[in-house]
């Protein structure tokens, strides 16, 4: 049996490693796939990486690409501004479920409607991580968080936000919209590459939600963490491609 040693992506910034994400956090996996995708497509020098304020802020110096922090929920419009000013740059916005579906929802909606040629990657771990585990738009019904201590009540707070579904409903035909999961790495990387390619080809908006883990705030051990991701979360959030201008996709 041969064992492959995973190589550190060239587009990763070595001085900021080891990174500061918690043990068991899915961000590290997503950013690995993103780094490999950037390397495969050869766009390191043109890529602008924007991150939100939340756990994603820890990625501000993660890549050996020009990067900027923005404000909570405002990564979308900052990326739009950069892209409108300099269309040759590849703008990648990175955020969580709080920044993308709550405070940033109007920006996500409008970027999709205007078919902005940026790529948005959203890490969905069903809570506000950095601020200590409050309920978020993607918290599951019955799930306990710091602001739903007795379990999320959909009567009072609505049902979980189906992000890629709502983006796909308003996006143009040449947009790319998908949902991946950190438990299926090859698929995650493929979707990220498709998303970036959509921007490189100048087609339109691209959006990938990635189901991810947060054992720190879920207060779960390794086994429970993975079970929640693969069993509970995937049941609520189907994985696949919702809009794919490159072909039939695998949805």
């Amino acid at each position, binding site marked *: 049996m041969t064992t492959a040693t995973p190589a550190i992506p060239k587009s990763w910034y070595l001085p900021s490693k080891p990174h*500061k*994400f*918690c043990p068991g956090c899915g961000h590290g996996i997503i950013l690995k796939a993103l780094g490999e995708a950037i390397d495969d497509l050869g766009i390191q020098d043109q890529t602008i990486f924007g991150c939100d304020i939340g756990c994603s802020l820890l990625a501000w110096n993660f890549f050996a690409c020009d990067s900027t922090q923005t404000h909570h929920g405002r990564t979308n419009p900052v990326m739009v501004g950069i892209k409108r000013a300099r269309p040759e740059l590849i703008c990648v916005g990175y955020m969580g479920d709080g920044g993308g579906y709550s405070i940033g929802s109007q920006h996500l909606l409008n970027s999709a409607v205007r078919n902005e040629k940026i790529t948005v990657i959203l890490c969905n771990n069903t809570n506000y991580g*950095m601020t200590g585990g409050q309920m978020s738009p993607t918290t599951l019904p019955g799930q306990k968080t710091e602001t739903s201590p007795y379990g999320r009540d959909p009567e009072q707070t609505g049902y979980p936000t189906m992000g890629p579904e709502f983006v796909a409903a308003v996006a143009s035909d040449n947009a790319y919209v998908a949902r991946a999961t950190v438990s299926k790495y090859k698929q995650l990387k493929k979707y990220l590459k498709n998303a970036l390619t959509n921007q490189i080809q100048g087609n339109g908006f691209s959006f990938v939600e990635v189901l991810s883990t947060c054992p720190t705030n879920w207060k779960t051990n390794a086994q429970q963490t993975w079970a929640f991701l693969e069993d509970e979360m995937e049941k609520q959030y189907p994985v696949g491609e919702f809009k794919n201008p490159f072909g039939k996709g695998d949805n």
Partner: protein
Amino acid sequence: MALLRIALAGEGGQGVQSIAEILAEAAYNSDKQALYIPNFGLEQRGGVSIAFIQFSDERIGAPKFNKADVVIALSDRAIPRTVDYSDQKTLYVYDSGIKISPEELPSEAKQIIGIPALDIANNELHPRVFNIIIMGAVIGLTNVVSFEAAKSALDHKLAAKFEKNPALRDLNYKALEIGKNLAEKSLKEGGALNE
């Protein structure tokens, strides 16, 4: 009692904030003034966890301080992060399991003490009560609260766990006592802190 300032630092997960909270509560229950504040900035995520506690008979002023009367450092990274809190009046304590060269220790201190808390926790008691040994050591070093008050505050905080498993109570009390004895023994070499 005059103002006593303690800085406690270690890695996330070592239980630094827990023992700081229990000590502050024990002092408060003994009708002393107590003020406890954790370092809660972004540096805490993946960084060193520090607790700042002050005890006094009088109303306590600002929640932060530049120099501590007692510093307790529980990990490699906690030492460089806390050396600046030490001046010639400070009792600087570190876990003797930490491999450290003399230049890394504070240049100014009243006394520098290493106590083998981690070693004893791992080999004689249980790794989980490492922080309780440290709590006992703080009491041994400063007499900031009575041993009884500390046991009572510990009982209060861990009531649910003790109810499920009464053997835990004995383990924790033992850890507290061992820590106190360790500290008193170390102090004998250099003289007491609170006259």
